[in-house]
């Protein structure tokens, strides 16, 4: 199995799950970094190298002693999550994902009012007005504009007829919003913390309300009204946000303004909301948790616990959680153990060292991950099955 021979593999480095990736030729820095990872590491117990059997035994001991374990992080794919779900059942552990805070910014809107959404292939083929709200998207999903907004061909819209707007946010890379022939995007920046006001104003304007001020958060109301008019005139408008970029209190209310603007647009024309971003299998884990248990994943990143099993396959650079409880880390072989953890077990990374399955950020599309090189590392499922057997 040679990386060089793989031309169409699925990249799990962000929520977009591009499945046309050649690991050695990818232009996406996230993807390139993902596929260039080393896969050499040894298990350890309290910083001392150990065998897998010893590490598994120690992990099982710690879980056995616990009355309130948490299986957290959950940066993994569907196969790994199923194994974690099973172990949680055996150990009465609570499951939690490292992206819970951003996931719940969206989930709260779903549970309060619902929404009217669209998916990437619809946007690629239909969207004539695209508004990126508080985000440039590319910081999270590098190839979004390349693959979705400016394709070589689309079914119902020409690239030069697309109208791109960046609304809110600052320091964004808006260069990708320029069309292939050089038609620039409309850029209306503002302090991200003022997005609640800007989105409420846009919603009001789309609903036909008059505003009595001249500017909102530094954006001229006439410019906002112009965006509202273009949305109402669009055949298929798309409003996009990234929950991670809505980093202010009660961001769900701002997201709700966006989704309700789409509901308003759909009274007379067609429009869709689209939440982009996603990482570390957050969509996958939330969906699978929901069908297995009937409920969405836990609202907290780190629920109360007296032992923590932390799973992190995809973000080796992410800091380990802060906890006073025993900490078992199972994950990417390149995780920087900046502090001593009770147990560390390196595992095969799905999409690189192991096959797997993942759900794309816009939901509905589920893609297989390929194993593209050999490894001696066990999978998360294999490790957790051994832990379960040792309980």
């Amino acid at each position, binding site marked *: 199995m040679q990386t060089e021979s793989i031309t*169409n593999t*699925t990249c799990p480095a962000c929520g977009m799950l591009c*499945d*046309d990736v050649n690991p050695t030729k990818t232009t996406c820095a996230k993807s390139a970094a993902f596929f260039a990872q080393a896969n050499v590491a040894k298990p350890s117990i309290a910083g001392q190298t150990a065998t897998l059997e010893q590490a598994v035994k120690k992990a099982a001991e710690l879980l056995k002693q616990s009355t309130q374990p948490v299986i957290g992080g959950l940066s993994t794919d*569907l196969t790994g999550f*199923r194994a974690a779900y099973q172990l949680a059942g055996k150990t009465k552990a609570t499951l939690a994902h490292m992206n819970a805070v951003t996931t719940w910014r969206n*989930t709260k809107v*779903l*549970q*309060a*009012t*619902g*929404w*009217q*959404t*669209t*998916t*990437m*292939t*619809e946007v*690629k*083929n*239909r969207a004539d007005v695209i508004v990126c709200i508080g985000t440039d998207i590319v910081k999270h999903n590098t190839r979004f504009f390349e*693959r*979705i907004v400016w*394709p*070589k*061909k*689309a*079914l*119902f819209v020409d690239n030069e007829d697309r109208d791109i707007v960046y609304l809110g946010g600052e320091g964004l890379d808006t260069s990708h919003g320029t069309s292939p022939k050089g038609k620039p995007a409309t850029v209306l920046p503002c302090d991200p913390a003022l997005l609640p006001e800007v989105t409420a104003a846009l919603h009001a304007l789309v609903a036909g309300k008059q505003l009595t001020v001249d500017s909102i958060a530094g954006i001229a109301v006439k410019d906002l009204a112009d965006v509202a008019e273009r949305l109402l005139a669009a*055949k*298929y408008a798309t409003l996009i946000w990234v929950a991670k970029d809505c980093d202010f209190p009660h961001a769900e209310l701002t997201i709700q303004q966006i989704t309700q603007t789409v509901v308003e647009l*759909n009274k007379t*024309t*067609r429009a*869709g909301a689209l939440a982009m971003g996603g990482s570390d299998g957050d969509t996958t884990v*939330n*969906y*699978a948790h*929901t*069908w*297995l*248990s*009937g*409920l*969405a994943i836990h609202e907290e990143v780190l629920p109360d616990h007296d032992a923590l099993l932390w799973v992190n396959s995809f973000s080796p650079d992410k800091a380990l959680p802060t906890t006073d409880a025993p900490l078992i880390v199972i994950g990417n072989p390149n995780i920087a153990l900046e502090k001593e953890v009770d147990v560390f077990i390196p595992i095969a990374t799905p999409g690189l060292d192991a096959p797997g*399955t993942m*759900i794309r950020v816009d*939901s*509905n*599309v*589920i*893609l*297989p991950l390929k194993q593209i090189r050999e490894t001696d590392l066990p999978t998360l499922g294999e490790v957790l099955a051994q832990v379960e057997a040792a309980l």
Partner: protein
Amino acid sequence: MIILLKNGKVYDPAHGKDGVKQDIYIRDGRIIDKPAQTDHIDETIDLNGKVVMAGAIDMHSHIGGGKVNIARMMLPEYQETLQYHEPEAHICGPHCTHDATPSTINTGMRYIEMGYTAAFEPAILAINARQAHLEMGDTPMIDKGGYAMLGNDDYFLRLLANKADQKTINDYVAWTLNATQTIGIKVVNPGGINAFKFNQRRLDLDENNTHYAVSPRQILQSLSRAVHDLGVTKPLHVHCNNLGAAGNFQTTLDTMGASDGVPMHLTHIQFHSYDTEGDKKFSSAAAKIAEGINNNKHITVDVGQILFGQTVTASGDTMMQHLNANHANPKKSVIMDIECDGGCGVVPFKYRDENYVNALQWAIGLEIFLSVEDPWRIFLTTDHPNGAPFTSYPHLIRLLMDKSFRDDAFGQLNLDAQAMSNLTAIDREYSLYEIATMTRAGAAKLIGLRDRGHLGVGAAADITVYTEQADKEAMFAKPNYVFKDGQLVVKDGDIVKVVWGKTHTAKPDYDQNVEKGLNEYFDQYHTIQLDNFKISDDEIAADGRNQVVSHTK
């Protein structure tokens, strides 16, 4: 290992057996002939006085895939009503809300407890098929399968608009069945979901999708013909245009004639049987619809009965669900355009017996059940969870089998609705034989499961044993024994063994050249590779618990 089920009263319509006292022998998961005297019988269960039927088959129940999971995620409040500390909590009445959005685990458990051994997800979005199979793979106890939706996908509509020949359509339909690992094809609001993306708000049978200049009638003709030509047993599964709209019965009657006599199955027909008479401009067209069914032998239907209580409607029909979202209760909903393939609409709903329209919907469903003459062509469904959770089937069976119970329930309805229904004038009570036909033999025959739904020699030993009692709801809620593939899995209402069931598919042959056009289309317009659209047997069976069974003729 041979198990003998002795002295049971067997209801096996596939073999014309109507309460015949008969012994059944099981070996290696199958029903076998009476073994030789020298063969050792390992276990004998005396079923004297018990009713024996094949395991029930739900031919239309939304048990897996994106829509249901959105409903789960959107409605956490439905789970809060589940009283886990109550031992009887799993025996659900028609008013339970948690069973509107059960987890996959609970789905399998609740089905098997009622003696159902298979359920078919009727609305698999092709692009979402992998998720549907993942969810069904996490559904224990029962066999599964699904129908893939076509007819609103841009690929198909382009073929039709470009006047592709029937062979090309057939190849695409066969390819889709193979790629999505499904056993049938469904069309939802033919052309309407797609038309909604072009901002059309309604679509009648002979009205064109404005972009493609293609009508629902053409779509029905093309797809029903393809399914028929390919030798797929399950007829095209049709969710008609104009779901839920007053006066839609004419569309439904016209749809029966749209396939020129080629078999079609019209699903949740209750939602498509509304007239516009009376002060409220909403009335029952059940008599006309039942007459249409009785006269059109190529048509089968399932009812989609509503029962009162809180539930959620999950449908591919974005066009009509967008309208229905105004009636959402609680007031939230999801409407989604998906991948140039289809859409989904999830709208929570509370059916109330004091509400005129809801009360009449209840009566219309029962009027259809009781007016369609041939139990082989009508199937017992609530369109779970759209009309009610599947856990209310025992209650529905009692409504069909017990006129006085039904009339008492009718007496509780909104008075204006009572005045608009002739339900109490219908004396028919379903027999156990007819119930067994609708829920077993007929369903298996419709889908093409030759070794399920009956108790003949060679059949898979999916067997349910009930105690006959006057209260048919109690009888059907809690069988004494359920066998799945020959293993005793439920005893006196309790699950005694966890099994995982199989996935049933149809895999008709097709011309491999079909992938040329598809490859080009995926490369240009889609956002995934064609190869990743296709689901292999291994993906479904790799976990070691599941198995793909193909029922190609």
